[in-house]
């Protein structure tokens, strides 16, 4: 650090920016995979293993939940990470969305 550093006054972030930044760091987003009648069960298991690095048993549990209950919450994450996972799942043509936790 410089000895004679001049103190600087940083501009105060406006409320909207602050709120947005807080939201982005908040792990209050869930990634949901929804059931459809067309994706193969083994394929869905494979995708969960690749995208989340899960064991086959864990991936199969979530796949079965999608199949039987219509959806499965896959992960709770920050906005940025949740968005990343949703895009990854879309790349594999799975029907996935991100939602606010509890909505």
């Amino acid at each position, binding site marked *: 650090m410089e000895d004679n550093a001049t103190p600087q006054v940083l501009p105060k972030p406006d409320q909207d920016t602050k709120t947005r930044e807080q939201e982005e760091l908040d792990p209050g987003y869930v990634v949901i995979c929804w059931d459809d*009648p*067309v994706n193969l069960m083994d394929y869905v298991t494979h995708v969960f293993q690749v995208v989340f690095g899960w064991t086959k048993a864990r991936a199969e549990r979530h796949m079965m939940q999608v199949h039987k209950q219509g959806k499965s919450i896959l992960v709770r994450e920050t906005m940025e990470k949740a*968005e990343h996972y949703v895009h990854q799942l879309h*790349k594999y043509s799975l029907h996935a969305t991100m*939602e606010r936790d509890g909505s």
Partner: protein
Amino acid sequence: MNFLEANDDKLVFLIEPRGRRVLRKLCLKYPSLEVSYFELCRTMDEEELPDGREVADQSLREEQSEVRKRILKLLADESRFEETEGFLLMRLTMEEVDLLLQVLNDVRIGCWSRAGSPSEGGEELMRSDPKLAPLLAAMQLCGFFQGALLDGLNRQKNPPSDEDDGFDLEDLSI
């Protein structure tokens, strides 16, 4: 097409020359799904959504374009295929199998979407409609190839041990 063996980090599939041509034709349909097919969320308001949706969509399109080029090049690469008694041995890395699965699934879901996204049991309806029957055939072919690829991945990850051949005399109540 059938999975044959895992060899030097590659999965070997047995495929007929005709099967190879069909596989290529199916891959030519990729990407089949519009990027707009995918929704990012169901319950959040527009202003709550992350910024840069258009950038993400463009990125997906570019990635799909690269995958398409790579898969078509792979299927045209003669060094990947070895002739044996009227069949071909096709060698793929795990990553290539994963890409091929992505491509075939996109084509499969695209056909389903174009057929009006029928619910379960809609196959009979598709079969009897001359406009929908080709879509059903493409879906079934994609499913067939996907099944073989997934079988290869599963058996590569969980190879059967020499002692366990899946058959146990103790299981027979005789």
